[in-house]
């Protein structure tokens, strides 16, 4: 009898929360998995012909696939290189020698957050139009023309670097917070290492996770970027996907599925490699 009275209330109170939790998780799983599953079904289930992986085969034969993907990858590599070359010395300097510059860098790296990509591209477009109007006779004009070379539009690298700044800054800053840069460099210097060597050999190896994290965020940003590229008239991967969708719906969905799988694989690799730091990274804003 005593057992019954003691066990009953606990059983009731413990079972109820588990029920709502299960319901919430089930709904979430349905909402997030159905579009993925449906996309796969959409690409392999050809009406009237049954199941076929044809859409995926077509991807590699499609016109412009290779060139646009290569362009996106090149842009991504260039952006990663530029943004890291700019940010790594800056954030290390903030920790080591110039903490008073922190507010300046804080503001500079947050500015892109208040300018949506579409507004940024409107501004860039205006700057580019200055060329023919005001600068036609100056060397600046040649520069403006050069950065818009469709084979490798440097102007996109500039725009993407600006867009990546806030995320890269936060990722690197979080990484550096976990490492005592000052002690590391002082320890290295007391072992007779020069300044640059101390940075390269003592600090950077400890930043590996943060660097990977920042690189991945930038990679994901550039591979998926559509707004700036489309409105400036270039055709990297994301723009190409939209352009082919008009004529080949299945193909564009197949490419979307594929690009999503690649992104997931990269992120999972990074999560297991970088010790789970990726999910703490700053959520990136949509373009």
């Amino acid at each position, binding site marked *: 009898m005593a057992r019954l009275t003691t066990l009953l209330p606990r059983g009731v109170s413990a079972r109820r929360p588990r029920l709502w939790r299960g319901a919430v998780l089930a709904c979430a799983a349905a909402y997030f998995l159905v579009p993925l599953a449906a996309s796969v079904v959409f690409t392999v289930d050809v009406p009237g012909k049954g199941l076929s992986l044809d859409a995926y085969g077509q991807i590699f034969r499609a016109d412009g696939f290779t060139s646009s993907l290569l362009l996106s990858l090149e842009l991504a590599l260039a952006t990663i290189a530029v943004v890291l070359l700019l940010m790594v010395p800056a954030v290390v300097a903030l920790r080591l020698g110039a903490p008073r510059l922190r507010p300046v860098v804080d503001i*500079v790296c947050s500015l892109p957050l208040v300018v*949506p990509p579409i507004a940024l591209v409107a501004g860039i477009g205006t700057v580019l139009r200055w060329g023919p109007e005001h600068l036609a006779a100056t060397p600046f004009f040649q520069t403006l023309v050069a950065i818009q070379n469709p084979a490798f539009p440097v102007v996109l690298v500039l725009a993407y670097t600006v867009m990546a700044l806030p995320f890269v800054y936060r990722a690197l800053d979080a990484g550096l917070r976990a490492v005592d840069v000052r002690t590391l460099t002082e320890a290295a210097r007391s072992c007779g290492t020069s300044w640059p060597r101390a940075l390269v050999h003592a600090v950077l190896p400890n930043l590996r996770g943060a660097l990977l994290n920042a690189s991945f965020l930038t990679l994901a940003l550039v591979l998926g970027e559509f707004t700036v590229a489309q409105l400036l008239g270039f055709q990297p991967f994301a723009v190409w996907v939209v352009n082919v969708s008009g004529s080949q719906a299945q193909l564009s969905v197949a490419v979307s599925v594929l690009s999503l799988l690649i992104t997931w694989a990269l992120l999972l690799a990074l999560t297991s490699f970088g010790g789970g730091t990726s999910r703490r990274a700053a959520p990136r804003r949509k*373009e």
Partner: protein
Amino acid sequence: MTSSTTTLTGPAAAAAVPVRRHRSAGWIAVAPLLAFVALSFGAPALAMLGGAFTARDPATGATSYTTANFAASLHGAYLTALLGSVKLSAVSAGIAAVLGLLLAQAVVTSRFRALREAVLTASGVLANFGGVPLAFAFVATLGNSGVLTRQLGLARHGWDLYSFWGLTLTYLYFLIPLMVLTVTPALDGLRSQWREAAQNNGATGAQYWRHVALPVLAPSLLGGLVLLFGSAFAAYATAAAMVGSSVPLVTLQIADAISGNVLLGQENVALALSLDMVAVACLVMAVYLPLQRRSARWLD
């Protein structure tokens, strides 16, 4: 750094040299970043600002300063688009905030460590999964010839993905995970002592949520809501790839105006619209940052 000056003269004098060198080295390390931002961000921003306030006479080619662009950006189709964007962002951010909170709470209170890790990792991916692939995934699922539309005959029930609610449903796909990422640290920061202290003071479960948990979470929830709003407000690729222009959105209007799809000579109105967006984004930040600070003080 300053403490070195309190040591004896000899070592202090020796230390002062590298200290000064660090300081200038600090400037040198930061300078390229500042120069780059001034060029790549400052120039377009100034161009935007300048262009938004100038008008050009099509006949003479002369430019003059004016606020007419702003007036235009707040009228007619442009105003509809701006309001449409605000409405879509507010509705989808509101729904995503509630659903994201539920999901985060389900995950945080779960005893399964693996479930938590899986959901947070997936959220990290999905919060970044906007743009074109998202649009096509939903087109394939719920578009006119989408798998679910055909299987369930949704078209007969009046379903249309290329509408306000269709777009909302799509935006939730990256907004909910974004909310989960934003609010999970806050839920982790809710101490079990608070629940127990509340119960100990005679509060029921509902009273605990009403009087303790929600007020304590409020800054984080509002901060998350504002962040989601900003994220939805700035989104362009998803809408452009999916609905074309069947739902009026400010980003779509800017794109049309820039590319001269509608009318020629609307570039400067596009710049004024862009500034409108920047103003909204600044407002978002002005609300978000103080909330974030207060939440950090309560929950760290």
